[in-house]
């Protein structure tokens, strides 16, 4: 079963990468002209994918700190997997937002001409730091195994391990213990950093006074809880498929533990959502009401009701309550069902991100502006074009392939812990 899923993911990622290349070709050759975002709705699908992936990354990373900082024993073997998942999602997030720039070659200006009043400049600083931390953490987490693979491995893995171990040759227990001590320090630095950068993404939207739907002090908190829920869910699904081949009981134990965390986070996230909707809908101001009405019963009502509410909340919550919350028979296998529920949460979370980015922009800042002057991009409707979807498919597939190749070549999950397919 797991090996079938792995093959399926490989096939989907390769197809997505190939098909998405056409979108990338169009993006490079035609610029922004084939995208539907414009002047009145300046941010579209790629921004939604950016906050989606960065949330998955932050959530995954924060869960990795359960291993390296809180040292929860049962999760010990999934620490590297959590870090590597966070790394893959970070790459996808950075690529998504890079594609969105009108001048992609000038991305360095964010650091070169930094404006500390701008949340986006802070993103530049915090992502660079996070990127650094995650790479260093991954290296220390993998170092011992890389040295071991460089000594005893075969073929491509051996060569890659030798290259990536950067001359390090000590894989003794003492050296590994020293690595763990360093990982703890890095993890401790990483926690506030991950909270700052993902809370910061929330703040990036929250500070925009001109868009009341975004302009709430709860935005950073909502973003963090969403990140933990979606990132935790993704990691749980990843652990089930690519995780170490544990005994049934142990795997069950890990999956239930992670399943309970995800369940609590999904419910808390939903609570925040209910609060946002009830308060917003009480208002009579169009800038407050219109985005919420568009989410609930606009043209794209199904993004909220079907994709998010049904497949992202109701079904996963029912499954997780039934399978992850311990009942009479704790040994009954539940891993597959929990993984499926978590995969649903992780995948459908893009609907939440989409509903954060787009509806806030549909209310004309000056009533009637859309009728004053016509032209491409001077409208208050938005539907992602085929080019936009293809680019996002390529970015997603690229990150998935990066994960799959890394998982194959690097000792993310040690070979003796791998499932024998």
């Amino acid at each position, binding site marked *: 079963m797991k090996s079938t899923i792995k093959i399926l993911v490989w096939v989907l990622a390769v197809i997505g990468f190939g098909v998405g290349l056409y979108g990338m070709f169009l993006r490079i050759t035609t610029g*922004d002209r084939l995208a539907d975002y*414009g002047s009145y709705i300046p941010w579209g699908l790629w921004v939604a994918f950016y906050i989606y992936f960065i949330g998955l990354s932050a959530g995954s990373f924060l869960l990795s700190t359960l291993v390296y900082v809180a040292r929860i024993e049962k999760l010990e073997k999934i620490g590297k997997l959590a870090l590597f998942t966070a790394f893959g999602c970070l790459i996808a997030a950075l690529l998504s937002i890079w594609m969105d720039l009108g001048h992609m070659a000038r991305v360095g*200006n964010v650091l070169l001409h930094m404006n500390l009043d701008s949340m986006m400049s802070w993103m530049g600083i915090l992502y660079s730091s996070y990127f650094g931390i995650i790479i260093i953490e991954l290296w220390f987490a993998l170092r011992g195994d890389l040295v071991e693979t460089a000594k005893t491995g075969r073929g491509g893995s051996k060569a890659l391990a030798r290259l990536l171990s950067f001359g390090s040759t000590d894989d003794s227990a003492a050296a590994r213990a020293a690595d763990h001590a360093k990982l703890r320090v890095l993890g401790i630095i990483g926690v506030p950093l991950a909270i700052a950068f993902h809370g910061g993404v929330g703040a990036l939207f929250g500070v925009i006074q001109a868009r009341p739907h975004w302009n709430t002090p709860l935005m950073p908190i909502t973003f963090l809880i969403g990140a933990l829920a979606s990132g935790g869910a993704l990691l749980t699904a990843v652990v089930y498929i690519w995780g170490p081949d544990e005994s049934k009981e142990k795997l069950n134990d890990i999956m239930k533990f992670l399943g309970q965390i995800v369940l609590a986070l999904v419910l808390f996230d939903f609570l925040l959502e209910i609060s946002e909707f009830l308060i917003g809908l009480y208002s009579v101001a169009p800038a407050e009401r219109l985005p919420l009405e568009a989410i609930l019963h606009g043209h794209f009502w199904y993004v909220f009701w079907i994709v998010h509410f049904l497949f992202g909340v109701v079904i996963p919550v029912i499954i997780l309550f039934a399978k992850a919350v311990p009942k009479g028979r704790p040994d009954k296998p539940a891993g597959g069902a929990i993984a499926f529920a978590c995969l649903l949460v992780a995948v459908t979370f893009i609907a939440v991100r989409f509903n954060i980015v787009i509806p806030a922009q549909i209310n004309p800042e000056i009533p009637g502006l859309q009728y004053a002057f016509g032209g491409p991009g001077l409208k208050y409707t938005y539907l992602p074009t085929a080019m936009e979807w293809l680019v996002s498919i390529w970015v997603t597939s690229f990150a998935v392939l990066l994960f799959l190749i890394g998982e194959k070549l690097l000792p993310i999950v040690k070979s003796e812990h791998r499932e024998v397919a």
Partner: protein
Amino acid sequence: MALIDVERHEIRQQMMDDLQRALKKPMNKRHWAMVIDQAKCVGCTACTTACVAENHLPPGVVYRPVIEEEVGKYPNVRKSFLPRPCMQCDDPPCVKVCPAHATWKRPDGIVEINYNRCIGCRYCIGACPYSARTFDKGFFYTDGTPEIMDYEKEPSFEYGKEWPRKNRESSPIGNARKCTYCIHRVEKGILPACVTTCIGDATYFGDRNDPKSLVAKLLGSPRARKLKEEEGTKPTTTYLV
């Protein structure tokens, strides 16, 4: 204050004189301001068109749309018009959010954009409460015809520099753009294009720091209002309602 406070033939001359006086001062001693008399605007959109022509604006980019509003019910209906240039806010939200310091408030009151530094993230567009910034996606009016006409590639002269549209990659394509109060004209002693083309003399321009200037006098009118004053952006552009 009367509906028309200045004799029509005197308006242009006075604004030209105001301009010359202001230009003799150091840049940080003058503060350009625009006053729009909504009671005099007939909604002809000559200003919008003049602005497009002056700044060589491509499809999808507009600096000064005129928003129409219908008030009342038949038979008591009337229309009001709101020309909307950049507000050149004294506390501009677009400047605050720019991650690359590509836009800033000049000492003479103009919010300038450095097109060559702008990364095209469009954060400023979302942050402007007046939707005064638009995104140049790189369209040409003659797209879809056998040849992109040369007149579309001619440079605009925003901020006193040349911005040709030679290809679809170079700035201002891919940038956020907005009204500059035609500062390239103003610094040569010519009034903004929207002011000179206004058929009803509904748009006034000058140095608000000069108490003798026409705009400074009009800013003292009890009819003077700012757009969305509650946003705290302190717009320079002022309306007489």
